[in-house]
């Protein structure tokens, strides 16, 4: 899991800008886990990171955010839940393959632990400050 994360950040080396996390409450995350992620409007962002299961009722919001993001844009599905439904794969109300609705660039399967994997992703983003132009 960590290896694939590193590979992705290498791929986006020159282009990657600002991530938007769909399905994560960033305020609550900073209180509970101690990870501080700055919030951005979807219009500023380039990279869409989807965490957790996406249901049919949630989908319009995801599509809205994707439409608002600036070009060129990438989509990463983080965790098994986002990729294929995880333990809810049997359910009628979830979307098993998001690629039917949105072009997906990367699938990262596996159980995510927010503390480890998100912080690795963020550190990798941090290391390219000059290009990113964000102050974490």
């Amino acid at each position, binding site marked *: 899991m960590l290896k694939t994360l590193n590979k992705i950040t290498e791929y986006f080396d020159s282009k990657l800008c600002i991530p938007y996390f*769909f*399905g*994560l*409450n960033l*305020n*609550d995350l900073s*209180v509970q886990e101690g990870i501080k992620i700055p919030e951005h409007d979807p219009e500023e962002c380039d990279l869409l990171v989807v965490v957790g*299961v996406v*249901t*049919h*009722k*949630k*989908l*319009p*919001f995801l599509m*809205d955010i994707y439409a608002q993001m600036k070009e060129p844009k990438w989509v990463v599905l983080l965790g098994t839940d986002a990729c294929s439904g995880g*333990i*809810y794969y*049997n*359910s*009628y*109300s*979830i979307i098993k393959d998001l690629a039917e609705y949105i072009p997906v660039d990367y699938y990262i399967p596996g159980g995510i632990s927010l503390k480890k994997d998100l912080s690795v992703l963020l550190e990798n983003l941090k290391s390219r400050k000059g290009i990113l132009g964000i102050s974490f």
Partner: protein
Amino acid sequence: MSLEKKLQNRFKSNFKVEGKMYYLEASLHEQVQVLVELKDSFSFIFFLDFFVRDLINEKGPKRFEVNYILLSMGEEKRINVAFKVDEGEKLHSLNFLWKPLAWYEREAKEMYGVYFIYSHCKPLLTGMSEKKSMHPMRKDWKNNYEDFNFDIQKKVFDDLHYVRAELSESRFWTQLELSQFYCDTDWKVFVEVEEEKIQRSFVDVGYNHLGIEKIAENGDIVNFGSYIEQLNQNAKFMGSFLWCYSIEELFDIQISDRSKTLRMIFKELGRIHDHICLLRKQLSLVKSIELISHCNEVLITINLIFRSYLKNKNTQNLFVIGGMASDVNSFWVIESLEQIEKIEKNINTITNILNNNTLWMESLTTGEIPVKDAFHWSFSGPTLRASGVNYDIRKSSPYYFYSDVNFEVPLGVKGDNYDRYLVRIREVEESLKIVEQLLDNLPLGKVFANKDLYGLSRLKNKTKVLRELSSNTQRKRVYTSIESSNGELGVSIILNESDNVERVHLRTPSYVLAQSFPELVKGKYYAYALPILMSLNISVPEIDR
């Protein structure tokens, strides 16, 4: 005459007793009459649960069965009243008897196509359109993604903006900002404001609807506890506790004393965890950083106890059917007693500062719930106790060793936000007492009483093994409930002839709390809406399921 004899005289052979539960069947044309009679003359005042079942595999004359579960607090008895309905027949809406039925009836229409007269039947959980007849919980339903409706967002706004022309200038709609506490896409609460007072409000849920109950029908009887536990992540261990407890009740399996006490310890720790998580949210509204750090310390120490129990194991589930995941040694007991002293110190500092603190009281004065309303909405747990009703399942029908442990049930007077805070913080102190008593008197013996049940999750025919062990009973249905941190958390399980799961329905406390919000807030200042919503302690996945 006892209640059981009275009911037998009245309903004759339609009335049955199975274990702790009463079961009653009645015909459809008596629906209103029977339920009103039960409420007025048989003291079943309190409404607990409602669910529909599809009978297509039983090949009876009628297609569906509608179940009401009621509670009589004085006698401490629960009754399941069932009516059979055919497709096309209409039931009476009983919204006037018990208010929470409004959402239950909407869900029944959406999931099964069971219609009610005079009821507002907009789809609640799934994003399906109203006109198409799609009922995903029916047994013969197949996945058909194209029929889902994707334009919900616009639709909601269209309905909301309808206000009379005279009022449209002075009133305006806004969405409550919940981004501090919930994810953007968890749920939405819209509020209509006139001169800073709330006139109408609207709760939109179902964004995380996962269809757990349908998954249970197709799947595994052993591992379903972990699905329930996902519903409320702050109240740890409650879901899997409930599932293991109810499966053991259903198949009449005895577990050892040691695992009973261990389960109780972790459940009480879970209660503390949830209450402190809520307190941290409420404190972040006031922005007192010192006290938040005290809360964080409590949560960290609880997690330490949990991690030191599961040292080298990769499992998330502590509770396994028939016992516990692993045994403990005396070092663990001493260690965790030390940790609990730490928790007590932290909570003492919190209560010394907050109790009778005028600033803190001022921020929590609103949100009064009179006893009458609390009954009418069928609240349970701390919310009911804060309005002065002395009802706790741990006291009234004690399971495991709750009858042997010394603890008190704290009560409020007015039922406002401050009362709810006091009840919760007193409950934390009481459950710390319980944990200390249990750790001091941890019984000796093995965790697993039955060797056959060890490694049950790896076997293929699990229900066969369970049924062989329970030679005494041939029970096929059960309703069990526990005192969760939020209220009464219950589950009704129904098995078919070959012992597979026919229907599972969860009674979650948040479902009722969320739909009462518009009425609690009506006529109050806009600034009070968020503190009231916080103090109800709603976890959104419990509503969506």
